[in-house]
């Protein structure tokens, strides 16, 4: 029973114990806050990428695109595990607001907004046409004009707090979009008098995907118009990508494997076609593989951060070790007394490990509670600091993809942090406790008498 009573008394009646408690609490606080924010950012980034791509994507990086996509769409639509398929044309273009001397390089994406919203989260990124995506390319000021959707950071600048200011209705603005159409062989195609095709589109909406690369460089156009602009409508119709969404009960990996199987069969069947060579570069990828270059960087940062926190953990172990050495040197008399009444070495070891366990439990509880409290108010704190001190954790004019700082604590992450903190305390206390257990009672009692 003394193994229960004494650790508590040591914990709350020895000031030196507070040092260990504070060390553990500070480490847990730091890890909880930083890991929550970092994990939130990574998860948010992944979710936005998933939403942008859909579950699976079939296509090619080649600007020529691939042929027979309509036939393959029919194959996919016949599969019971697929909920939505959307063809997209993707290329590069120059955009020039009418009356302006400035041209900006952009990526254009030709889509059918209704189909694309079924296969991806595109509809949710719109501002004016979120409720009725069929009107996406019909400017409210004149539905007969060819509309375009512009990545929000191309169109509306953020204020210092990271907020966008929208007009009540889209303002009429004509944009010249110039593209280089390509033949199925990859050569520049003639477009009218030259090799550049220029058409006028009218601003109808903005898209806010939350992905800096997309919001800062993408312009969405009606599918047929984009196909024509890129020369993908002749002599055989081509598309760049097919975005696919699986039914909810389909596992993404299994769904992608099925799509890959269907594609291999389809490519084989069409290997004798006129534009069969365009099928050679087509890949079937999950959204994660497709966005791997972007996600991998974030994941690498997260891994590095985790590695840094392992060092924080090692520091905690060292602090606990030092504190326990100090506590045990102060408590050597107690060890002698306990041994004089028949306490075994293993029970002395357990006594101090119990003490370390409670240091870990209370320290991590305090740290986790403080971390939770801090996270709840992290955005308010950041706003306050920005307004009063001018400090902003992420300058929203630079880090355009970041809105509010993520502050949703994950129970699993919290559990891992707390258990790690307790394990660190036990690890730190193990050597001093072992030495305490091996102390000869007569030495501690005699020393105390001097």
């Amino acid at each position, binding site marked *: *029973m*003394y*193994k*229960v*009573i*004494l650790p508590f*008394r*040591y914990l709350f*009646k020895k000031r030196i114990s507070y040092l260990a408690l504070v060390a553990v609490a500070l480490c847990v606080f730091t890890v909880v806050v930083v890991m929550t924010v970092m994990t939130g950012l990574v998860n948010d980034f992944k979710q936005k990428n998933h939403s942008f791509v859909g579950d699976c994507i079939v296509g090619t990086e080649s600007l020529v695109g691939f042929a027979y996509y309509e036939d393959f769409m029919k194959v996919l639509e016949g599969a019971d595990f697929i909920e939505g398929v959307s063809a997209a044309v993707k290329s590069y273009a120059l955009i020039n607001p009418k009356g302006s001397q400035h041209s900006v390089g952009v990526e254009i994406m030709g889509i059918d907004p209704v189909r694309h919203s079924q296969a991806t989260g595109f509809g949710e990124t719109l501002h004016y046409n979120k409720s009725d995506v069929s009107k996406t390319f019909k400017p409210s000021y004149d539905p007969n004009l060819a509309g375009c959707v512009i990545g929000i950071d191309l169109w509306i600048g953020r204020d210092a707090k990271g907020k966008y200011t929208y007009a009540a209705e889209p303002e009429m603005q004509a944009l010249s979009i110039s593209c280089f159409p390509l033949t199925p062989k990859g050569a520049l195609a003639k477009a009218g008098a030259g090799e550049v095709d220029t058409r006028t589109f009218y601003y109808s909406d903005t898209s806010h995907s939350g992905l800096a690369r997309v919001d800062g460089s993408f312009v969405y156009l009606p599918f047929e118009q984009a196909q024509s602009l890129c020369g993908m409508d002749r002599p055989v119709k081509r598309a760049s990508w097919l975005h696919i969404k699986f039914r909810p009960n389909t596992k993404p990996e299994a769904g992608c494997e099925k799509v890959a199987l269907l594609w291999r069969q389809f490519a084989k069947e069409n290997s004798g076609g006129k534009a069969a060579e365009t099928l050679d570069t087509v890949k079937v990828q999950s959204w994660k593989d497709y966005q791997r270059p972007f996600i991998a960087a974030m994941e690498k940062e997260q891994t590095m951060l985790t590695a840094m926190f392992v060092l924080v953990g090692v520091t905690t172990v060292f602090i606990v070790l030092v504190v326990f050495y100090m506590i045990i040197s102060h408590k050597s*008399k*107690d060890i*002698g*007394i*306990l*041994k*004089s*009444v*028949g*306490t*075994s*070495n293993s*029970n002395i070891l357990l006594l101090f490990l119990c003490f370390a366990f409670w240091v870990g439990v209370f320290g991590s509880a305090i740290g986790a509670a403080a971390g939770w409290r801090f996270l709840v108010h992290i955005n308010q704190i950041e706003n306050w600091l920005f307004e009063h001190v001018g400090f902003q954790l992420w300058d929203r004019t630079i880090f355009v993809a970041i809105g509010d700082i993520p502050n949703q604590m994950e129970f699993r992450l919290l559990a891992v942090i707390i258990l790690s903190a307790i394990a660190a305390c036990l690890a730190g206390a193990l050597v001093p406790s072992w030495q305490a257990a091996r102390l*000869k*009672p*007569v030495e501690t*009692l*005699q020393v*105390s*008498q001097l």
Partner: protein
Amino acid sequence: MSKQEYILEAEGICKSYRMGTAEVKVLKGVDLSVKKGEFLAIVGASGSGKSTLLHILGALDKPDKGVVRFEGRNLNKAGEGKLNHFRNKMVGFVFQFYHLLDELNVLENVLLPTMAGTGVLGWLGRRRAAKKRARELLSEVGLGKRANHKPYQLSGGERQRAAIARALMNEPKILLVDEPTGNLDSETGNDILKVFEKLNRAGETIVMVTHDEGIAQRAGRIITLADGKIEHKCASAQINL
């Protein structure tokens, strides 16, 4: 006298310590026997090895040479578990500096040997009876109303009484007492000695170490330790009366 009458025997006990490169021989072949119910005083000057001898007798330390027998069983051959059991159940220690745990109150200090001798579940089963005995012991040593006080709230004499109550908690067969009045004024020391005399009259075997021959006279038998050896043995004057 038959061997069975001796509760504790020591034969040829030698003990030395290292102080830097020098070896200091503290005990040089001590022979000693303690009868059941006896009150034995070991007298010696400071540094004569009397505390070392007491620690060896109580299995807090091991001799370099020699044998310690408790009720005929060789303590040198006992494993760690048996020695823990011996210290918990068979012997009670009273130290000069009381050695109470500051974090526990007086009652908890007295209960410590019982807590140390039982697991958590065992303790829960024995808790009520143990607390009753601890309170009785505290009343016997005059600390009935100080049970919930912390050691630092007690006087030196009271602390020593609490230490005596703790030593008696598991009804040990022998009390080993190290300079029990060394840190007390004469009046308080006298009160403490009266407690030991009372316990001895009730049948408790006591071995007391002291440097004060006057205090040793209160014991039934005195042996003198000098230069690591037993110098002479005699019955105390008080007993002779």
